[in-house]
């Protein structure tokens, strides 16, 4: 008994640092944010009131609903592009089998690049008058675009940049999934007379669904919290056309010092991320084989 107690105490001691770290770095800020979301603050940081006012304010705030819309628009567009292109790329890599090391490094380099650097790079490429993108378009005889400066194009452009950066990541995940599929199943399909199209849509794709959902979970968390690239390139503009919930919350908090309202926005965003993860995990259970 004494030995067991002793052992338990030692175990508690050893896990204490991790526990302290988790509580101070994750649980405390999160709970504190929830607490803050129920306060109203003066511009000097004094608490001026308490209650659900911040949440009531959201319901009537057109900018909040705009933020939700932009967040989901950017999320859906980016996710679809990354999954489709990532799967395509993975299939190509899977067929190629052996890839020279230099090509592989080149291929994964986008997602190793810090988003800030990527953002700067794309700002240059997409510059309406000096950038390479419009030069290519016009030399092909196509009309130039304002890209990030265009209210219509800003979200698709951000989605393209994020897709450029994160498609290789999705492709690596899908490639892992492809490599773990049983080869004899493909031989059975060959003998069963399945065309390439039938093999892809009736064998490969259904077998890859669990992997694709995993990739969706990982990308969803990032995409719903999309921040750094937007902050570098548009800061929510032009005129709020790329103002995601995250950017809106950041500006409310750190530009207008509406700390309570900003916290309420962030709590709402967290609930959305959590909801997406739960929904996708349910989906994964459904496609597991």
């Amino acid at each position, binding site marked *: 008994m004494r030995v067991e107690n002793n052992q338990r105490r030692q175990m508690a001691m050893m896990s204490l640092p991790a526990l302290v770290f988790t509580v101070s770095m994750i649980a405390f800020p999160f709970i504190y944010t929830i607490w803050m979301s129920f306060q109203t603050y003066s511009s000097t940081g004094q608490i001026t009131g308490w209650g659900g006012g911040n949440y009531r304010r959201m319901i009537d705030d057109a900018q909040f609903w705009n933020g939700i819309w932009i967040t989901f628009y950017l999320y859906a567009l980016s996710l679809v592009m990354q999954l489709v292109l990532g799967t395509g790329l993975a299939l190509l890599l899977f067929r190629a089998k052996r890839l020279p090391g230099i090509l592989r490094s080149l291929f994964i380099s986008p997602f190793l690049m810090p988003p800030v650097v990527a953002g700067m790079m794309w700002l240059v490429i997409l510059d309406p008058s000096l950038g390479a993108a419009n030069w290519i378009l016009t030399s092909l005889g196509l009309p130039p675009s304002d890209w990030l400066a265009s209210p219509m194009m800003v979200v698709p452009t951000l989605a393209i940049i994020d897709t450029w950066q994160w498609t290789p990541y999705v492709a690596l995940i899908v490639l892992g999934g492809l490599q773990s599929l049983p080869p004899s199943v493909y*031989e*059975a*399909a060959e*003998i*069963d007379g399945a065309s390439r199209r039938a093999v892809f849509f009736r064998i490969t794709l259904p077998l890859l669904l669990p992997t694709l959902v995993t990739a969706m979970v990982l990308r969803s968390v990032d995409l719903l919290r999309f921040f750094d690239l937007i902050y570098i390139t548009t800061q929510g503009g032009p005129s709020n056309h790329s103002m995601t919930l995250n950017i809106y919350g950041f500006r409310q908090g750190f530009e207008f010092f509406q700390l309570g309202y900003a916290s309420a926005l962030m709590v709402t965003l967290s609930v959305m991320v959590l909801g997406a993860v739960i929904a996708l995990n349910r989906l994964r259970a459904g496609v597991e*084989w």
Partner: protein
Amino acid sequence: MASISLRNVVKKYGAATVIPDLNLEIEDEEFIVLVGPSGCGKSTLLRVLAGLEAIDGGDLMIGDRRVNDVPAAKRDIAMVFQDYALYPHMTVRQNMAFALEMRDLPASEINAKIDAAAKLLDIHPYLDRRPKALSGGQRQRVAMGRAIVRDPQVFLFDEPLSNLDAKLRGQVRAEIKTLSRQLRTTMVFVTHDQIEAMTMADRIVVMKSGVIQQVGTPEEVYEAPINLFVASFIGSPSMNFLPITLEGEQLRLAGGDSLPLDSGLSTGVSGPDLILGVRPEHFEVVPEGQGIPAEIMLVEPLGSDTLIHVRAAEQDLIARVSPDLRPVAGGSVFLRPIAGKAHLFDSATEMRLIGKNGK
């Protein structure tokens, strides 16, 4: 429903030649078992038949059609894989329907075929389950069902029993044999298990290093193995081999003991460099002076009979004896090959020498 001819078939993987030059005629409705140790080319041969591997030379005929360049899907064959290769995301019914859907058969016909096969294999209760929810034996049946619904000209089996436990293996073995009678289709079955080969085959093809050693009925390969390899591979426990010198009518064993030459073995050959082959079940225990003295090292009772591991004539031998003998380790017995059951091999060519009696 089709014969198969392999003529001068060559298969290479890169620089390595797996099958140098293979000839084999398989008759219509025949149950052929390809048997041999790992790496003997039996599975490669099956994959060649299936069309999963292209051949590098020779001709491959199914029926009277040359199928060298015919893709797997068009060969009208069905294959049962070692790991069953069921589509894991499909139900049993969908698994069985897949090949038929690929042929654009009407749904009513597909369902009728599935129902018939399910009845034959007794898998009706699982039709709506996925492979994950089935036991090994059930998956094995589904794999066969998927082959049967296609009503192919040839069935190919790639070690389909190796993932089953011993008891189930015996049961499925009997089922496949029964099934082959009912379906009356050409079947090619690959195994490394000589018991499966013996029990199921119409004819056994024994392979080693991509070369066919012997083709024959189970009785033929057991009773008249063509060489040392076949003799040691077929039969369990393996045949015992004793180096001997033939001196007139006496077989001189290592260690100085001798046995009288069995009249059936007399070949006219004499001298050293011969090997006497005796199966464990072909030793008889005899009174002192009539056989070779053997020291019992280990006793393995099997119930119906008992295996004794003995040291005799400077060799480790195994003999299958009656349990009534009550042998004990450390004791000794006198053993003699049963008349007409021993074999003589040339140790240089490793071929069996045919006796005067033609056997």
